[in-house]
């Protein structure tokens, strides 16, 4: 009989692009089940570890938020390069979400309205350190290939748990009634 393969923990990286971190907060709503999860996975780049760049051998990349600036594009490409499987988590990652509601407006008008209103001065921030804004906010699948989508604004802790446990068990994740939500 063959000896069972030594169990290797899956490497998981997570990040928030043009999102509000609500999906990450919801992730924490899986509560004490996170103890079961860390038996199966180890966190690479994520807000929990504060690692700045993902290792080249990540298994899973979980991304919250859409793409609204040049840095988002950069991070998203880095995730695609370093993770075998990418998950778009939450409404913003999937269709741009609320940030994409600016897409019907002109970017110059928005910047002027925010920074150059009477009483607020006329200076539109242009420091090279500030990532360049894109004309439109985009969902992730318009920029790189995405393998799985986990809808919700945010998806509930239960939905995230069901999704991840399905995936880790080798099943196509499905969310039945009550777990699948767009809001």
């Amino acid at each position, binding site marked *: 009989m063959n000896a069972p393969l030594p169990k290797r923990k899956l490497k998981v990286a997570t990040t928030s692009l043009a999102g509000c971190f609500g999906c990450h907060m919801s992730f924490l709503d899986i509560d004490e089940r996170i103890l079961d999860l860390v038996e199966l996975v180890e966190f690479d780049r994520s807000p929990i570890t504060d690692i700045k760049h993902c290792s080249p051998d990540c298994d899973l990349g979980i991304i919250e938020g859409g793409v609204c600036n040049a840095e988002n594009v950069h991070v998203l490409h880095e995730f695609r390069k370093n993770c075998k499987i990418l998950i*778009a988590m939450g*409404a913003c990652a*999937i*269709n*741009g*979400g*609320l940030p*994409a*509601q600016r*897409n*019907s407006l002109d970017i110059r008008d928005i910047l002027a309205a925010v920074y150059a209103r009477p009483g607020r001065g006329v200076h539109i921030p242009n420091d090279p350190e500030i990532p360049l804004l894109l004309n*439109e906010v*985009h*969902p992730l*699948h*318009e920029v790189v290939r*995405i393998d*799985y*989508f*986990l*809808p919700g*604004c945010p998806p509930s802790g239960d939905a995230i748990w069901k999704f991840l446990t399905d995936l880790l068990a080798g099943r196509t*994740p*499905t*969310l039945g*009634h*009550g777990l*699948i*939500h*767009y*809001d």
Partner: protein
Amino acid sequence: MSDPKTFFLDEEEIPFEEGQTIIQAALSAGKYIPHLCYHPEFKPHGSCKLCTVRIDSRTVTTEDGQTVKIPGRAAASCTTPAQAGQHVESEVPEILDLRRTLVQMLLVEGNHYCPSCEKSGKCMLQGLAYDLGVMDPHFPQYFSKREVDASHPDILLDFNRCILCELCVRASAEVDKKNVFALSGRGNTKHLICNSESGKLGDTNLAATDKAANVCPVGVILHKRHGFEVPYGQRRFDRAPISDNPAQYAPVKEQV
């Protein structure tokens, strides 16, 4: 009196009355067929194609003994009359895939930001998408630029979410006798218009109690000063899937 007529919907025998369409007979018999532009009180429109079914597929045996399925014709069940003995496929993978694609196309074509939509939780497009297990938009987002019309004192129009089902058009013409709404343009420029000189809803005679103001299946025609009244988790499609109670969509029987 003629014998009761029946057809088969996913192998189940469904009775129907002469003149009923497939969807009418199915809903009366408590079998749900997805739909958006069908409404039991109005003439069928046949535009959304969510109610598509396959009719009379055949299985034939080829000369070398293999069985091959020859798919029957695809048809909108809201406009196709029921016929005795016909075999209708609805909840089959191929048709469900097609419906999923249609829902994805509708979602990317408008600007459907459910978290900020007052219809969320009771929206038929959303309810259908949940039921079909739509997890992703699949297509690039269209990000169409559409206006909002807040000129009416009681009703707000957010054209971003219009699926062009014409339910408001039919309600206004057939029930309210006012012709407040119409569709204009073709292809991807097709859009809903209001029948007033200014084109503004505020300059029409629409009343908040009109059928047309209360029939939109999605979040276009909204009542002002009402919003997010039912808490998350207790809204219609939070409590039960859209397919759960087909009787609510069944045609009203004529009183004789």
